[in-house]
């Protein structure tokens, strides 16, 4: 019954949506030759290096792979901790 309502409201992802989301991730891995595990350790190492120079809060860091046309781009959004307020700095 709940599935019924979800379908009408469009809350349950269709199989086509699932295919698209899965393909997005698979294509990133294929194009960059980088497994999800490798991407995870890359993120951790980037954070370690940056922490040596400036103070950051690991929970606010966002490092992810994005697609622009057929180009993959690693985008890091790393907010820097400051005594008065915080300044967000974007590292492309």
């Amino acid at each position, binding site marked *: 019954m709940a599935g*019924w309502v979800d*379908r*009408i409201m*469009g809350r349950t992802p*269709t*199989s*086509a*949506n699932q*295919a*698209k989301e*899965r*393909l*997005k991730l*698979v*294509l990133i891995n*294929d*194009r960059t030759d980088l497994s999800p595990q490798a991407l995870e350790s890359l993120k951790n190492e980037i954070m370690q290096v940056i922490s040596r120079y400036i103070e950051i809060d690991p929970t606010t860091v966002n490092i992810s792979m994005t*697609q622009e*046309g*057929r180009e993959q781009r690693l985008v890091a959004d790393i907010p820097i901790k400051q005594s008065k307020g915080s300044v967000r700095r974007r590292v492309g």
Partner: protein
Amino acid sequence: MTATVVTVTSGKGGVGKTTTTANIAVALAVDNSKVVCIDGDIGLRNLDVVLGLENRIVYDLVDVVEGRCRLRQAMIRDKRMQELFLIPAAQTRDKSSVSPSDMVRLCDELRQEFDWILIDSPAGIERGFRNAIAPADTVLVVTNPEVSAVRDADRIIGLIEAEEKGPARLIINRLKSTMVKRGDMLTADDVLELLAVELIGIVPDDENVIVSTNRGQPVALDPKSRAGQAFINISHRLRGEKVPFLNLEEKDGFFSRLTKILHPGGA
């Protein structure tokens, strides 16, 4: 006359490369172009049966490359059209009997006599694929709206770019509009967004393709069939004409979902 060499490839097997090659060739030839198609799938030839020319093979591509016959002797003329020829693949040899430079030399010889040279690439990313794209001026990638075909298309598009044969253009083959409507098949827009390449054709899933292949009469000879019309449109776009894409999809909105639930199985 200087031909344009068009290679049709896909990565994954069974997505419709041979059918696509045959039908674009027929559509171009019906429009009074001089066309030759080359079956690059040595060992697993099929372009001959799809075109209905299987009973007329004497010599093949490997015979030409190895000098057992002249190029002209291996060219089978399709009697249904003014100027359509096939150079069949050898059936009892393998991909390594031909090299990329053999293919470049062969196409250079054909270029002066034709408007279009179409090469049907085998599946895979190995020697047969390399042979097929070596002489290409433009590459068409065929895919189906399915995860494995899209993934392999992405891989092959990357390889085509690496070989500086890009940008490849995409044909989405066997799109089932009823499945798209109920959200069970990727839309053409989904596939385009994932692969980020230029689209040259959307071919609807059409039983006429199997019927026409049974008879050895490519579906592009029947402009009333939906797939035939889609292949004819691709041939016009290859010539540089602007042809609107057939509208095969509708957005899956609230009402279509509701209709689907009230009438399961209905389209």
